[in-house]
């Protein structure tokens, strides 16, 4: 059924359709609307049976989910940014124990300086935690990916993160096709745990494992993600068959056939990118866009297959490995090892910096002309940066960076963006 609703509410409804049995809620922007809506659903009885628990921290949220999942319940929580970092220890634990928890990450920057706006630093920080990481391009996909995530995670007994851009998607009201309960029930069977705390069959879960077996445990986790590389497209296919639209999968190519330049990106920016690509193509430039839906497991083969024909690859990321550069770029490079084509990394939209079509067109045009620096920070205000660098060179006590910059930027309220 078509609805015009806010992304957070759309996701909340999708999660509710998956019949979660335990939901842990702790507020942090921009994820909050999702658990608010779920809390409402549980209170009203619309979602039942379900335990909605207001925990005292994200660390506790993930821990409660761990306990619930280990006891055989379908568990869900949502977080973002600092919250994800605060629960990091438990995040690793959930995957280490192989508990198929599903968690929405409403992607947001990480401080300091504190910043509530969108980029991918938070989920990227958990890149290696052993969770599957799926990225949504729009609210429809965010909604669909949650339904697929429960199925995928529970089959493999691995936890899944569904990443959606904070505010840009979570707070955007747009059209979504909301499936009906029977459809979802037919697609997603009840949770059948691989291991469960049950007095009638007692087991010890979470034993201490020494050097004699730890590597094997880790390898097996990797093996599962490798299996996921097969299951993700299959599940996306089945989903498409049942629900009549394609969502998820490993990667999605837009106008990549015959493309000389392909832009690789994750999340909501893909939309703007596609518009930009259309514009460039109208100008006769052969540009395509490759969206990565599954960042973990990283689909090396699929990415290579999509890119090997191109002349140049631009990886556009909303994350940044300080001291190195691109994070996604690094993975893409692994996928392309052996191939010789121009590669550019464009860091954009950190901390919510608007990514405009105009800037994209300009940047890509430079890339196509191979005038772009290998590592480019789109729309970076060099004036401010240089002024601060001078300041630091001049005086030892140059003061707090963020505050200095704000002074240089001037009153924000007078700007529309």
């Amino acid at each position: 059924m078509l609805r015009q609703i806010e992304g957070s509410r759309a996701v909340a409804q999708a999660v509710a359709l998956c019949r979660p049995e335990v939901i842990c809620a702790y507020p942090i922007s921009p994820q909050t609307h999702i658990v608010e809506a779920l809390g409402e659903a549980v209170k009203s009885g619309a979602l039942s049976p379900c335990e909605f628990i207001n925990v005292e921290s994200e660390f506790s949220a993930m821990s409660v989910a761990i306990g619930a999942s280990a006891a055989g319940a379908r568990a869900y929580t949502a977080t973002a940014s600092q919250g994800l970092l605060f629960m990091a220890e438990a995040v690793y634990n959930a995957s280490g124990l192989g508990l198929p928890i599903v968690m929405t990450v409403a992607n947001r920057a990480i401080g300091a300086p504190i910043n509530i706006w969108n980029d991918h630093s938070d989920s990227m920080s958990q890149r290696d935690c052993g969770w599957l990481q799926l990225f949504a391009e729009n609210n429809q996909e965010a909604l669909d990916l949650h339904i697929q995530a429960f199925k995928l995670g529970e089959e493999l007994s691995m936890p899944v993160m569904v990443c959606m851009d904070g505010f840009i998607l979570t707070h955007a009201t747009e059209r979504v096709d909301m499936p009906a309960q029977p459809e979802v029930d037919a697609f997603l069977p009840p949770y059948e745990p691989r291991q469960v705390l049950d007095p009638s069959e007692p087991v010890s879960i979470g034993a201490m494992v020494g050097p004699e077996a730890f590597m094997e445990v880790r390898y097996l986790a990797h093996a599962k993600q490798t299996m996921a590389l097969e299951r993700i497209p299959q599940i996306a296919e089945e989903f498409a068959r049942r629900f009549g639209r394609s969502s998820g999968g490993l990667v999605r190519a837009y106008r990549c056939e015959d493309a000389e330049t392909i832009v690789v990106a994750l999340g909501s920016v893909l939309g703007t990118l596609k518009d930009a690509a259309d514009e460039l193509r109208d100008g006769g430039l052969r540009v395509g866009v490759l969206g990565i839906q599954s960042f973990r497991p990283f689909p090396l083969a699929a990415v290579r297959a999509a890119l090997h024909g191109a002349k140049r690859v631009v990886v556009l990321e909303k994350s940044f490995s300080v001291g190195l550069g691109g994070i996604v770029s690094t993975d893409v490079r692994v996928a392309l090892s052996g191939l010789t084509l121009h590669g550019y990394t464009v860091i954009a939209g950190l901390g919510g910096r608007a990514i405009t079509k105009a800037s994209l067109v300009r940047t890509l045009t430079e890339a196509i002309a191979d005038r772009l620096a290998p590592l480019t920070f789109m729309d970076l205000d060099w004036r401010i940066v240089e002024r601060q660098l001078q300041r630091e060179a001049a005086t030892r006590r140059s003061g707090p960076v963020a505050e200095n910059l704000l002074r240089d930027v001037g009153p924000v309220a007078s700007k529309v963006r």
Partner: protein
Amino acid sequence: MKKPFAITLDPGSSLANKTGSWRTERPVYVDRLPPCNAQCPAGEDIQGWLFRAEGGDYEAAWRHLTRENPFPAIMGRVCYHSCEEVCNRGQLDAAVGINSVERFLGDEALKRGWGFAPPATESGKHVLVVGAGPSGMSAAYHLRCLGHGVTVKEAGPMLGGMLRFGIPRYRLPREVLDGEMQRVVDQGVAVELNARVACIADEMRIGRFDAVFLAVGAHIAKRAYIPAKDSARILDAVAVLRSMEGEEPPMLGRRVVVYGGGNTAIDVARTARRLGATEAIVVYRRTREKMPAHDLELEEALQEGVMVKWLSTIRRAGEGALTIEKMALDDSGNPQPTGEFETLETDSLVLALGQDVDLSLLEGVPGLELKDGVVQVDPLTMMTGHPGLFAGGDMVPAQRNVTVAVGHGKKAARCIDAWLRGARMPAAPKHALATFERLNVWYYSDAPKTVRPQLEIARRTSSFDEVQGGLTEDNALFEARRCLSCGNCFECDNCYGVCPDNAVIKLGAGKRFAFNYDYCKGCGICAAECPCGAIEMVPESV
């Protein structure tokens, strides 16, 4: 359920890990000798019968007790129970009332008419016992239990010896005495009364006895020279007490003086009060501390109005009056004359200066050694210098009291048995003593001693009713349970409970416990927390 590798483990699998290998010391269950048992002259297993008594099975307790001593009812009255002086519980609150429980059991037995089974097999040997006192009758009992034929020859008209002629009935009612003596006789012991043995040598030859146990006691009153007018009325204690068993009681008068410091002196004084003497005065040359009489008895005597003149000797006995000289202790604690004199009015003077043994029957027995008026015996076997001739009780060198005598009887009987079988009496292996330090007394509840009811003074001085009452069943049970079971496991489950490694195996009621050395790490908590000190930590040999 395909469980995740290494993350998820099957229950209880750690049993594969034998932590016993960590041990440097291992706990071992031991049995130790409780001080009461060690102390008992009759060698009773006091802790053993108390343990059975606490269960409420009094007959079992009684049978356990009488394996060592056939006279619990008598013991419960006349034994000075030195066992209670060494009882570890004494250091906690008050010693367990062993003596009163023993008496309770003895009385129960008499009341219920429990008896001794005759021996399963007869040995065909025949032993003569001379003297039907506590020692002789104890010997007779044990010999009979061992299957030997026994003949007891008693000079007196009744069984009991000094129990009858030396101990007043207010301390030992005669029905009790008769009851326990008769029980031994009923076991198949031949008794000849008024059968004085003049010459033991002849007796052995004529009676063709395989062995003899002599226990004639010490019945001859010691005399002391006291210048006296003929009119002075002077009697001896043995005679006085013996005549109490006859038809008419002795004439002592209203004012009686008893000369001596032993239990007999006290007995006579207390008897005199009961015979109507308004004044009964004991004259003793030393101080109370030095008095050989049992303090308990002295206490009772004083309660009954008996008076004592300490540090006094009798110099002269005149008509109705005595001359007393005050004494003073010298540095070595011996009394010395002071030259101070006083006069003491009295109707009669009773001499209680101790007794001698009548050794006349021993003349002409080769190898026999007499010393200080008593017969010398091998303390291990109770055998005299003459093979097959054993002796015990007051006629051998030892403390003269009923319990010692009973103990001699038992010991002699067992040695006679061994001797008859041509064996040597194996020295019973003695466990180390269960000292107070080895106990963990925390676990024992505070439980004050049960005091036995006492006959009120008025009736004590006017009648020969028994002074010391018995315990009710409740009290007896309670008293028995106050036992700490020093040195011997009583299955409190403590070791089973406190082991951090579950390495103690409970074998079930009455079977105690075993250690599972596969898992015992040797921490020693079980030993430290064992209340009765029945676990010992011994180093592992490496």
